[in-house]
């Protein structure tokens, strides 16, 4: 049996290695990216055998079982999201190879790998404090990437993220320490078992701090203000990474801590999800900058996922996971296409760009259809599952906001496919990877029962905290 530690170790060593290689081969260093993610994907597939049947795969430090060691846990839910993350990273790295990585590549490549390392660790870790450390790795690498191009907007977005993220992680750290104070342990499963030892009021306070702290990364409402600024400011290649891959880590962390460790806070998650969804989508309707619109839409989708998780039934959690998959792949294609199509993002600037270079524009269109939940794409099943797991009073607002979503996406598409193109890059034949993304959303719709099955397996560890705790603390394996 191979330990999940190997995944992180390989990512980390590749990150260092790429730095070293970059000293000698300034241009060639980018070629390491697909190799890295091919390796991690291989590892994941190798590790997935037991996990697909619903088992857990653990890695420990120091040869002791938790709670006496720091552990990494690969569960069905985390396997699903990890697989998504690494597949998309692989696609993105090939896309970047074709399109050219942001210069200097010697700095971009390690940062990229570190970012994925942060994401993977957050998903894998079974330790509350480690989650904090990896959160910081994630946010530092993200900030560096956002400010990478050194134009004013990128720096601005990066600094905003840095400050808000700093406050958020301080709050999270506070919560972790309070939990440690009362339970005397940092292991998620162990804390989860002893959560009863924390006084009632304190428990709620901790829950609040955790929602506020991790909510910054998970892009839910009052903590997500940095998102549009950062997404708009960053280089579009970086935004693709942030929107489709990095944002999943925050959601996963929040869900993991709330469901497994605290076993509380789903209601707040639900309310915040609704607020996020409504506000973000209305904002998106109003905004004129396409990158910002897509950022708001990402936040809206995050809110929708939080609604799904907050309802806390097997069907809704499975729908939430499917939603994360759909959103990740579609946003990958959409931001990728925007990057290929244009380098100015006002609604007037994108006029007619769709007619100029059809391949990325059509990829964008098809990915949008998937995001909007039309059939022939996985989005349709997601929407169907989601709607049927909703509570009745949520139905009307959610459907209304869906209509708003259709409206503003129609407007964007309409703008892209009409009128004379003012300007724009003409880069032919360089967006084949986006088509692969489109093929994925279509193909997923056909293997949907299998995906649903996998998600339903993932729900049990969230629905029944005891299962996770029992498996991690010794009952498993």
């Amino acid at each position, binding site marked *: 049996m191979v330990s999940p530690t190997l995944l992180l170790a390989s990512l980390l060593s590749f990150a260092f290695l790429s730095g070293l290689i970059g000293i000698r081969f300034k241009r060639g260093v980018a070629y390491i990216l697909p190799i890295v993610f091919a390796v991690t994907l291989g590892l994941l597939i190798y590790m997935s055998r037991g996990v697909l049947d619903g088992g857990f795969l653990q890695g420990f430090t120091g040869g002791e079982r938790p709670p006496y060691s720091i552990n990494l846990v690969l569960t069905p839910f985390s396997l699903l999201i990890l697989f998504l993350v690494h597949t998309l990273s692989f696609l993105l790295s090939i896309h970047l190879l074709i399109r050219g990585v942001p210069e200097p590549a010697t700095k971009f490549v390690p940062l990229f790998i570190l970012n994925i390392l942060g994401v993977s660790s957050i998903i894998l870790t079974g330790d509350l404090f480690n989650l904090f450390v990896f959160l910081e790795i994630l946010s530092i690498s993200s900030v560096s990437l956002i400010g990478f191009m050194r134009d004013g907007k990128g720096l601005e977005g990066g*600094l*905003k993220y840095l*400050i*808000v993220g700093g*406050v*958020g992680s301080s*709050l999270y750290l506070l919560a972790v320490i309070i939990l440690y104070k009362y339970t005397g342990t940092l292991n998620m499963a162990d804390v989860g078992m002893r959560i009863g030892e924390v*006084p*009632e*009021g*304190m428990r*709620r*306070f901790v829950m*609040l*701090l955790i929602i*506020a702290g991790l909510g*910054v990364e998970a892009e839910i409402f*009052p*903590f997500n*203000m*940095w998102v*549009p*600024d950062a997404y708009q400011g960053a280089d579009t290649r970086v935004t693709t990474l942030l929107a489709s891959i990095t944002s999943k880590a925050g959601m996963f962390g929040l869900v993991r801590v709330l469901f497994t460790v605290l076993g509380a806070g789903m209601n*707040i998650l639900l309310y915040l999800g609704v607020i996020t969804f409504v*506000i973000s989508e*209305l*904002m*998106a*309707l*109003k*905004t004129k900058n396409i990158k910002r619109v897509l950022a708001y839409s990402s936040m809206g989708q995050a809110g929708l996922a939080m609604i799904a998780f907050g309802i806390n039934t097997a069907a809704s959690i499975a729908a939430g996971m499917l939603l994360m998959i759909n959103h990740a792949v579609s946003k990958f294609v959409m931001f990728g296409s925007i990057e290929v199509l244009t380098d100015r993002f006002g609604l007037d600037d994108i006029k007619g760009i769709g007619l100029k270079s059809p391949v990325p524009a059509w990829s964008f*269109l098809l990915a949008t*259809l998937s995001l*909007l939940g*039309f*059939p*022939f794409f996985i989005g*349709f099943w997601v*929407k*169907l599952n989601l*709607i*049927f797991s*909703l509570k*009745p009073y949520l*139905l*009307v607002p959610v*459907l209304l906001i*869906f*209509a*708003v979503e*259709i*409206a503003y996406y*129609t407007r964007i*598409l*309409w703008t892209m*496919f*009409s009128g004379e193109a003012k300007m724009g890059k003409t880069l032919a034949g360089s967006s084949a990877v986006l088509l692969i993304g489109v093929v994925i959303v279509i193909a997923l719709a056909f293997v949907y029962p299998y995906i649903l099955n996998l998600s339903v397996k993932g729900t049990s560890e969230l629905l029944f905290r005891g299962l996770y705790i029992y498996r991690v603390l010794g009952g498993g394996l």
Partner: protein
Amino acid sequence: MMVNQGSILIFTTFILAGLLTYFLARVSKMSGRIGGALTGLFSIIFVYLFFHIYSLPGVQNLMFLLIGLVYVSSLFLLVSKETPPIQYLLFSGAAGSTFAFINGLDFITAFIFLELSTVFVFLSIVSGDRKKGGFLYLLFNGTGGLLFLYLLYFIYMKTGRFDYSAIAFLKPDEKILALTIGFLTFAIKMGTMPFHIWQPYAYRDADNGITVFLSGAISKIGVFGAFLMVFLQGSSFRISGNVYAYLGVITAVLAGLYALLQEDAKRLLAYSSLSQLGYVVIGLGLANSLSISGAILHAVSHGIFESLLFLVVGAVYIRTKTTDLNKLGGLITYMPISFIALLFGIIATSGIPPTIGFPSKWMLYHALVINGDPVLLSLTFLASILAFLYSFRLVYSIFLGPYTLKEKVGEAPFPALAGMVFFLLPLLILGLFPGLVLKFIELPVVRFGLPDFSFTPATLKTPLATVNFLTVGVVFIAWFVVAILVYAFAGRSRWLPVKNNYTAAEAIEDERILHYTGDFYRFIRRDMNFLLRHSIQRFYRRLFNLFGVIGDGISRIYTGDVRTYVYFILLFILIVLFKIKGGFPCLW
């Protein structure tokens, strides 16, 4: 959630046929054409025979036959010109989802294929040259899909079932809600008046073959769905029925009015199609056995004559590359068969025997008279008058008057002609023997009370009158022949160059439209301005802006100042802290 297996198989058949055609068309244009026709015909025959569609009950079967007819004819139009390969695929997809929708008898199947048809039509329009219609189509029909999703959820929550009969288990007031939502969905699909914005644009911008299918078949999804909604309610529908009848009559009148003002043949036909669907909604809204029969019969006749008209206009487009009414004229010399087809099409539109438009309108009018609402009746008459007016404009602008194009054109291509014949035959035969159609509806309408009418293939007996359509048709044909004979032998018309008429042989600039019907209904635009100014389009734009304004108000939260962002985090914590009982003391 079980999807109807038969529907999936039908859809798969059509998609495979479409894929095959797509690859054939990529190989060479000719193989694409031949392959398209063959695979299309094969798939429809396969579906008919294999799934025993002929043994399906009543209206479902009728819709299948009608959509099959439209499918074949629009396929003929597609293969008679340079069609991009992808259009074959998308057309097949749209057709397959339409058939699958009619076949599946539960809400989940209906929803899936409703959305699928939306996607395929959208993609098909957008992959053409003009795209505006596609996006409007997506906007409206996507929203309609959401409405249907609401219905789906509602019925599932109340009854735990997905099949259509679940509606019977609802409480009366729930029934009315479910019905209203469902009816609105299908009204959007049909393009009934407040939701009609997409229709003229979509019909104009779609590929001509697709437009035939859109008008003739896809709108029948709406008709069939609306019929189902009414049917499942049975006679309890009548409480709210009149509202829908008024919806229908407003559609019929306003769409007719708009049709007069169009300068583009396809847009004119779009509005005409809308106007005719208004009649169907009237019939469904009155909800008695006579009116429902009339509505279904009119849906069938609408499917036939509207498709025929679109087919002819499509054929004209193939030859002249334009559908602008001001640029066309005098084509009768070069395309006589197309002219005759169009002539019969507009005769049916106006509801004149011996075509199928006559019996359907006859039944609807009788239902209206029996219903006894004078406003409804007179408005419907007005709509019929409007139908005369725009039909005249259509036939005159395209085929009569002076020939305005530079070069000569040929008759429509053979497949298109075959499609016209395909429509002309039922148009005339069913016009003489409408009982053939009514037989399909005989059983279902009993749900709306015992029919107060009886029929044989050629005759119809309503409480008001008995009529033999065969006799009426023959008499009309006889008078027609007499009129032609009189014109041929005793006519005193003389051919003149068109400029003589207008200018007394003086030289004029070339740009002027000399055609008699050029901007023919200008006076209506002038006099009806007060009515036309308040367009519903503006209402939607304002709605859009309203949401935008709400978003604008909310957007003040996102100040761009990072300190505000931190404030919001703290504010959240403070607000929720106040909700926590005994939170602060625990700190110590």
